[in-house]
């Protein structure tokens, strides 16, 4: 399991490529790279230093992400791996790549729209947020928000009034 040739082990690009294959524990169709939480992979001496950022501050998946990164890199011959957390700049749903959005849609999860980053005080929104969404199953635009809080911190719950199926939407943040 540790038999990897020395020339690949020394290569930061290779380490990055390995780290980029690790998937999100809650959204396993997405790699951490496509989710936008894999910030940096560098090689310092013999140590791989991976920097990740949380989607939400209380995200309970951070420890699992860390462990998955360490295991995946160890299996590729990097015995010394450090995973750091960076809070700044804060993660935004805009950081999800195009490929990541496609993967979400293919797995029945609605991808986030553009996050509203207007300057100035945060505006109070008393009416439910209107998002122009299409049902990821049947494509109908006739969808209804069930709750802004879903099974994980980053998702809202919707129901399609066309095919009647519920679906998850990754929230804009």
């Amino acid at each position, binding site marked *: 399991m540790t038999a990897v040739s020395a020339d690949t082990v020394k290569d930061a690009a290779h380490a990055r490529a390995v780290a980029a294959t690790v998937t999100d524990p809650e959204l396993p169709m997405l790699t951490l790279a496509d989710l936008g939480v894999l910030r940096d992979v560098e090689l310092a001496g013999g140590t791989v230093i991976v920097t990740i950022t949380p989607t939400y501050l209380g995200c309970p998946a951070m420890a699992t992400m860390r462990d998955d990164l360490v295991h995946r890199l160890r299996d590729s011959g990097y015995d010394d791996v*450090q995973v750091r957390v960076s809070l700044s700049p804060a993660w935004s749903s805009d950081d999800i790549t195009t490929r990541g959005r496609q993967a979400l849609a293919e797995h029945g999860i609605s991808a986030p729209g553009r996050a509203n980053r207007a300057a100035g005080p945060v505006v109070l929104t008393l009416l439910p947020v209107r998002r122009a969404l299409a049902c990821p199953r049947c494509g109908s635009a006739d969808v209804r928000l069930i709750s802004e809080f879903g*099974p994980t911190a980053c998702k809202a719950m919707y129901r399609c009034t066309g095919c009647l199926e519920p679906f998850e939407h990754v929230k804009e943040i």
Partner: protein
Amino acid sequence: MGEMGHTGGHGTEHESVYDGLLGSGDSQWAFGTDFEDPLAGMDTTIPDGADAASLAQYCLMLGDDALIYSHRLSQWSSRAPDLEDDIALSNIALDLLGQARLLLTRAAAADPALVPALPDGSPVPPEDALAFFRDENAFRNVRLVEQDNGDFAVTVVRLLIFATYRLALLQHLAASTDAVLAAIAVKGVRELTYHRDYAARWFLTLSVGTDESRRRLLAALAVVWPYYGELSRTHPVELRVAEHGVGVDPATLTDEVDVLLGQVFGVSGVDRPGLPAVGPVSAGTGRDGRHTEEMGRLLAEMQVVARAHPNGRW
């Protein structure tokens, strides 16, 4: 995408499925994760002109508000009026717990003397030692957050007031000269925006729902409102960190918070209560460690298992 799902198979990579739950060591503190320093890689130097002890005290105040309120809200898990609100309140509690963890870590890093002493070799990280091994009078949260949840209306009113206050606070704190506080604030603003909207919508819904929901909402306002005043009562520590550019004087938030609450009251056809604020006890409030009767019971529930097993590992 080359790699979908768990290609490669955790079963072959790991000795057992439980390995993934554990950290790098053989065993870990039983009541938390062993994630290395949550602030690793961040600039934790004390900003110019600030003093470490005041910064640490301030982080305790903001961290304890989040921790204690998170614990209260989590008591709704499996007991909310419907599944969606059960999940919503649990999500909000989780967001606040995440903020609390980083703020308590920051407090411990700025002033290690704050962290309760534990037996040699204890696996408890500093932020957990602060959460589980401090006594009631060492907690610095406002008394608003420790009160019983009451019915759903009481919870909605309290969450509206808390989220409106904290969102205003974090928007100003984003300009803190402390890199850690600023980063937590920027992230927290995005989370709190959802919390405030959620509470405000429910406030409006209850106000125009049925006679019973409106009656309960007005009764809830009378229960919660007396604790509102404490939020804008400036503690000497808050004044000091505000002068240092590290923190925010809560008195400067009063107008902003009042306007926003006024908007919600306005559309809901509810008058702003004229009730007097709960006063200090022996010249102190929650920020001085003077708490109400509910706090002791909350801490007993939150801390009992950790305190029974200060060396607990698995």
